[in-house]
């Protein structure tokens, strides 16, 4: 009896404390660290690593929203343009505006400049 009552108490405590936990919206892999290292060192190797991580964030998204997080298409797309893959990169920058209309003012300006 005492044992089951104790179990009940623990159960209630757990139930009441778990209410606010929610699964993460996005999976980021190592994109944050990799892009930090790239902005610090600007080497080809760091650039390749940052691009690989962003590619993963875009293609292998496991977060609860099941969609690409804000900024990922834009960052990766811009890096692709700078690496000479203009069309592929521009398509991703446009994808950012499609996924997140909030980005339109900023990204459309960049797209216009790059398309000139």
């Amino acid at each position, binding site marked *: 009896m005492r044992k089951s009552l104790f179990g009940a108490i623990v159960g209630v405590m757990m139930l009441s404390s778990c209410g606010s936990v929610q699964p993460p919206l*996005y999976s980021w892999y190592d994109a*944050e660290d990799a*892009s930090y290292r790239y902005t610090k060192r600007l080497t080809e190797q760091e650039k390749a690593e940052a691009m690989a991580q962003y590619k993963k964030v875009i293609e292998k998204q496991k977060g609860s929203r099941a969609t690409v997080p804000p*900024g990922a298409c*834009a*960052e990766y797309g811009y890096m692709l343009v700078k690496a000479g893959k203009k069309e592929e990169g521009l398509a991703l920058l446009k994808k*950012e505006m499609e996924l997140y209309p*909030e*980005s339109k003012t900023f990204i459309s*300006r960049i797209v216009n400049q790059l398309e000139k």
Partner: protein
Amino acid sequence: MRKTIITAMMLLMGVVAQLQAATQGNENTRGVKYAQMYDERPRAIVVMPPINRTNHVEAKDFFYTTMYVPLCDKGYYVFPPMLTMEMFQAESAYDAEMFIEGNLDPFRNVLGADAAMFTIIKDWKRLNALGTITVNVEFILRSTKTGSTLYQREGTITVDNSVKSSQGGLFGALLNMAATAISTAATDKVEVGRKCASYVLSNMPEGPYSPNYEKDQNVKAGKDVIKETL
């Protein structure tokens, strides 16, 4: 017997619910504390270059990079950090000091941002041998429409980065110290910034891409100034 347990559970649930309500109070919910945030409903946030008031020059960059993920995870649209950084540098705006109390119209017009997140790094202390870093940072979210402060919180966060190896004895302890010194010196500093940002911002109202958007007004908001070891 079973009945008594069920009654006891019901009673307990009631007590827990009351306790939670009592500790929350009315004025300390997100809805009351950050009322303007629920009024204005910002969707898109631009992370401003951190204002560094410490001697640790690099701290500015750590914090700039680490604001992006926690704010996205809160459900906001956050402008891409590398692209915005390039814009800040091109416009000679990498010093946010001139915007913290100034007019934020340019960020609404040029970027389409609803709000700007400022950070002021007030202290950065590193104790290599112990593998701990203590940072004191203030976060201020200002509306680009009204200029008013929508959210503000300050945290003194200590992060324990010590590396624990399985080897015991004096040799093990020496190895630990060496490994710790290396780990605190490397990219772990980014980790410190990230932990600090996500911990301090944890009470911020959820953004439009969160399933709890506009449903979290009754959640406890917590204190404006916090101190924690992570």
